[in-house]
C-alpha cells in the first residue's frame, strides 16, 4: 500500500503545457513530451511539437514544476515531477505515449509505474547513478561538481549540441536553461530504481553515440532494461530535439509508433 501517497499527497501546482494538435483528429494517440532537468516545455516547442502535429499526432509538452513557466518548486522531488507528468497525461483525451528526454526519461519511468502509458520513448535517458555523474564530471567539472552541494547542475553547449547547430541558436538555448530542485538532483544520483511499469507498454530507447552526457553504454543499459536495443543517431548532441538534425529522431519515433508490430491497436 502506498501509504505516503495517501497521507502526504504531492502539492498541487500550476503547470505549463504547450501543445500542437493536428487539424484533423485521426484517432492517433497523443504524445506527451517530458523535458530533462533544466529544460522546459519550450525545448520541444522549438521543433518537435509542430512536426508531430503535422504528421497527425497530438503533441503536448509539460514543464516540470520549477521549470519553464510552471510554478516554482524548490522543494520538488522526483515523485513530484512524476506526479506532474501523470496529471497531464490523465488530462489528455486518450491514453498517451510518454516521451522523456535526459533525466525526464527517469521521470517518465517513474510515471509509468503510476499511469498505464500507451507506449514510452526514452530519449538520451539519464537514469542517474554515480557512473553518469562521473561522465558529467569528466566532461564538465565546473558545471557538475557544485551540483553535489546543492547548486544547479550546469550543462555547457558542447555537451548538449553538435557543432552543426548554428552558434546563435546554441547560445539562445543554453540561455534558457534553468535548474532542477536540489532534492530531485540528489535523487538522480542516489534515488531508488523506478517501480515496474503498469499496463505493459512497449518502450523505445534512442540517443546518440556522440552524446557527451549519456555514454553509449548507458543507452544500451537503459534499452536492455526494457528488453530492446537503442536506436542510434550518430553525430548529434545530448539535446536531440534542439540539435541541427532534430527531424531524424522524431521521425523515427513516429514511425515506430505507427509500425511497431506489438502495437497493432495504435491506428
Amino acid at each position, binding site marked *: 500500500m502506498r501509504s505516503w501517497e*495517501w*497521507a502526504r499527497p504531492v502539492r*498541487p501546482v500550476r503547470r505549463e503545457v504547450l501543445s500542437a494538435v493536428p487539424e484533423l483528429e485521426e484517432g492517433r494517440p497523443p504524445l506527451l513530451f517530458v523535458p530533462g532537468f533544466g529544460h522546459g516545455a519550450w525545448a520541444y516547442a522549438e521543433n518537435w511539437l509542430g512536426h508531430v502535429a503535422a504528421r497527425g499526432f497530438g503533441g503536448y509538452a509539460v514543464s516540470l514544476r520549477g521549470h519553464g513557466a510552471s510554478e516554482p518548486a524548490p522543494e520538488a522531488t522526483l515523485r513530484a515531477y512524476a*506526479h506532474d507528468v501523470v*496529471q497531464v497525461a490523465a*488530462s489528455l483525451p*486518450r491514453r498517451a505515449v510518454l516521451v522523456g528526454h535526459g533525466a525526464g526519461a527517469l521521470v517518465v519511468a517513474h510515471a509509468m509505474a503510476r499511469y*498505464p502509458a500507451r507506449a514510452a520513448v526514452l530519449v538520451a535517458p539519464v537514469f542517474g547513478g554515480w557512473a553518469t555523474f562521473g561522465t558529467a564530471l569528466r566532461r564538465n567539472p565546473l558545471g557538475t561538481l557544485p551540483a553535489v552541494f546543492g547548486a544547479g547542475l550546469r550543462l555547457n553547449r558542447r555537451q548538449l549540441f553538435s557543432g552543426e547547430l548554428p552558434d546563435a541558436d546554441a547560445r539562445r538555448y543554453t540561455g534558457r536553461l534553468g535548474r532542477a530542485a536540489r532534492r530531485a538532483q540528489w535523487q538522480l544520483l542516489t534515488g531508488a530504481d523506478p517501480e515496474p511499469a503498469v499496463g*505493459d507498454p512497449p518502450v523505445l530507447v534512442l540517443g546518440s553515440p556522440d552524446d557527451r552526457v549519456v555514454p553509449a553504454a548507458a543507452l544500451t543499459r537503459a534499452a536492455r532494461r526494457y528488453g530492446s536495443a537503442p536506436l542510434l543517431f550518430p553525430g548529434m548532441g545530448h539535446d536531440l530535439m534542439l540539435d541541427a538534425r532534430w527531424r531524424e529522431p522524431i521521425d523515427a519515433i513516429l514511425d515506430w509508433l505507427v509500425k511497431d508490430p506489438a502495437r497493432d491497436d495504435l491506428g
Partner: protein
Amino acid sequence: MPTSTEPGRPDPETTTLARGHDGRPVSDRGDTVCVIGAGASGLTAVKNLAEHGFGVDCYERETGVGGAWNWRHDRSPVYASTHLISSRPFTQFPDFPMPDHWPDYPHHSQLLSYFERYADHFDLRRHIWFGTEVVRVEPVGDDRWDVTTRSTGGYGPERTSRYAAVVIANGHNWSPKLPRYEGLEQFRGEVMHAASYKDSAQLRGKRVLVVGAGNTGCDIAVEAAQQASRCWHSTRRGYWYAPKYVFGRPADQVNDLLLALRVPLRVRQWLYHRTLRLTVGDLTRFGLPKPDHRVYETHPIANSLLVYHVGHGAITPVPDIERFHPHSVELTDGRHVDPELVVFATGYLPRFEFLDGKLLGDDEGVGRPRLWLNALVPDHPTLAVTGLLQPDSGIFTLAHWQAVLFARLLRLRVSRPERAAAFAARVRAGAGERYSGQVKDSTRHWFEVGHADYLRALERALRELESK
C-alpha cells in the same frame, strides 16, 4: 436491440451457437469476460481486464457510465448536494488521478465527469452495451457462465451468451433498506427512503424527521436544518461525527499519516477522542447520545456541519422510533413528535437478483456473500464480485486492485493452470475473512473494511499469485 443513447458497442457477432440448459440458443463468446455494470467498479474491471489482454463485454442497464454517481439514473442514491466524504487521494483510481485543481472533496457532478473521462481515456465504451440489463447468470460447467440479458425495462427478447468468466459490479447502494414499525401504514404524513431524496426543495418549509446517521442521514439532516421548518434527527446510538478537516488538512489524510507511521489503533482512537474533545467537546450537552463504541468501530461519518447545526438548535437530536401513530411518531423515550415528512436514511442492502445466492455462499439470500477479499468466490474461480466493500476511504482504488487481482488470476489459469488451482484452495480457506478492526454489529458493517488492512491483504494475494 439495446436502446443506446451512447455510442456503445454494436450487437455481438453471434459466434458458434451452443444450446443452453433449456435448449435456448446461446452465442459462445469464447474467452471473453462479462462485466455486469458500468459504475466505477465495472469500469475499472473492464479497463484492467482489457489491459491484461482479455476480450470484455460489459452490460449496463442505464444509458451512461458512472453508476451511482450519475444522479439522473433512476437508482442513483446521490442527491444534488452530495460531495465526497473521502478526499481526492483516497478516492481516485491509482493510475488515473483526479485533476490537481479540483477541491479536496469534489462534487458528485465532478465524479461523474471523472468516470466519463476515464471511460474515454481508456476507450472503454466500445466494450459496453448500454440499456441492457443482466437478468440471469448461470454456471454451465467447465467454469463457464451463461449470461442472459434483455433491454432495460423488459422490452425485447432475451439473449444468452456464454462467457469464460463473470465480474459482478452491480453496486450495493441502490436497494433501500427499510425498517418496519408498528403503525407505519396508518401514518398520515409523507414517508420516503433517502434513495428518492434528490433535492433540498423536497424539505422546504416542512417539519422533517430524518432517521439514521450514516453519511446520508447526516447530510439530509444538515439540509433540513437550513430548509425545513423543523428538523428532528433520530439515531439508535451515539456516533463520532468527524470533521472534514483537522490540523489544517483533510482528516482522512491526517489519519493515514498515523497509519503510515504504524501508530497502533488504541493510540489513534485516543488521539481522535482527544481532538474531538478539544474542538467540539462533549456532544451529550446538546442531547446527543454518548457513543456506545470507540471511534473507528462504526463506518466513519465525515460531516463538519451536523454538530454546527445542532449547536444552532436547528437540528433536534432524538432517539430511536418506538412506533408510528396517524399524526405523530412515538420515540423510545416516550416523547411524541409530529413530522409532516419522514426520511429513512437507513442505508441500502446488496442484492444479486440475477444469480442464485448459493453460488456466492449467500445461502439465505440476504445479500451477504461469503467471499475472500470480498471479491473471490470459493469453488467458482471464474466468478468475482467487485466494489462490494464499505471502506473507511474511497472505494475506487480498492475496486481497481480487485480487478487487477482477478485479471491476473484468469491469466494464470491459462498460463499455469496448476498454480491457479493451488490458488483456489487459498480462496476457499480465506472465505469470510474480515479486514477491519472490531466493528459494531449492524447490517451495514459485515462488509466494512479498513482500507489499509484491506489493501495490504490484497497486495499479499497479488504477490502470492505471482510468486508461487
